[in-house]
């Protein structure tokens, strides 16, 4: 069976549809990281799905995930150009809210994996890994990412040079990133 244009099989469209459903959470998180606004993410997500379905004939199924990332990125950048006034960086609450939203039953079908269980497991492991960091790195990460304080504020509060605080945060996060306990979880 062929599509309307007859130049690509219908299974391309089905594969793209399935890819959009399976990757919804990842793509929305990806868009959140770029757009830093849930309102804009909704818009970008809709545009991404529409464009992906319209362009399904050009999709290479072997690299479908990367292809969808490219479409999402292009749409996000288009929106960025249209909306010059954006928050300067991602609000951690947006990331957390999006993760929480993804764990609600309405956001995925019954066949989808249990995002809540995975998320809680991830958080538990993250907590354990976080505790394994030196205290100063734990503190800076907590202040910057959870409380959303700026590095300048943290440095002033701790009466430390800004560079020291920045380095502690960077080292801590990169250690978490390479922690074998987290590495596999973060790929899922």
């Amino acid at each position, binding site marked *: 069976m062929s599509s309307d244009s007859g130049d690509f099989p219908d299974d391309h469209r089905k594969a793209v549809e399935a890819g959009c459903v399976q990757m919804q959470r*990842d793509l929305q*998180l*990806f868009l*959140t*990281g*770029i757009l830093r606004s849930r309102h804009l993410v909704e818009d970008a997500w809709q545009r991404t799905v529409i464009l992906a379905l319209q362009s399904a004939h050009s999709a290479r199924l072997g690299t479908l995930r*990367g292809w969808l*990332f*490219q479409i999402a*990125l*292009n749409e996000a*950048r288009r929106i960025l150009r249209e909306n010059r006034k954006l*928050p*300067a*960086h*991602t*609000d*951690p*609450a947006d*990331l*957390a809210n999006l993760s929480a939203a993804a764990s609600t039953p309405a956001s995925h079908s019954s066949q989808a994996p249990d995002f809540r269980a995975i*998320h809680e497991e*991830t*958080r*538990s492991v*993250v*907590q354990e890994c*976080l505790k394994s960091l*030196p*205290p*100063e790195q*734990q*503190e800076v*990460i*907590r202040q*910057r*990412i*959870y409380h959303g*304080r*700026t*590095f*300048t*504020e943290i440095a002033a509060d*701790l009466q*430390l040079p*800004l*560079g*020291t605080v*920045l*380095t502690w945060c*960077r*080292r801590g*996060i*990169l*250690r*978490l*990133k390479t922690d074998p306990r*987290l590495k596999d979880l*973060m*790929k899922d």
Partner: protein
Amino acid sequence: MSPSSPSSWPDRPDVQSAGTADTADAAPGMLAWDPFAYALGELPPAAQACFEERMAADPELCEEFLAALRLLAALSSPETGSTRKVAASQLSRPHSPARGRRLTAILAASTALAAATLSAFSLHLHMVPTADSLRDAVALSSILQQVDSVPELPAEPVSDSDAAAMPLGEDLETPGWLLTAVDLDEQPSTSDIPPSDDEEAIF
């Protein structure tokens, strides 16, 4: 919530050379930091655009960015944020005065023990108790009392890099008791003074 100035970020790969002791400081580590810096809004506008261009050409970088976002999302969850707050006193500071005092105490104790060893060796050489040996004994006794009375400071986490970076002679103050002991040692010998009756009590 306003971001810190992106230009204040000191560790951009293009301005820092690789090869420092910490592997996290190496260039690959700096590249690995880019997705986090982008997500946290710590990149300057030009670097942000550059990172987006790189993602457009590299799906693997998109995956890296997604992994960074997942980690940040997990770290920003309430459970993670409610992790016990670390007291400011627990943070290892590059030039902590408390650590300086601790080092001073350790160095002073080492010096005192060395002086005590030399004094004891000197006593054994003379064999016959003299006024000098008595003064040495008094000095030794006072030194040991001082060493014992050095208060134990709360333990601080000291990383290897911090310890290596700290100059050992910094904040060193010669204690008064040590100067007194040196003065006594430098005074001329008065061997004609008979030994005190308390000498045995001292030992």
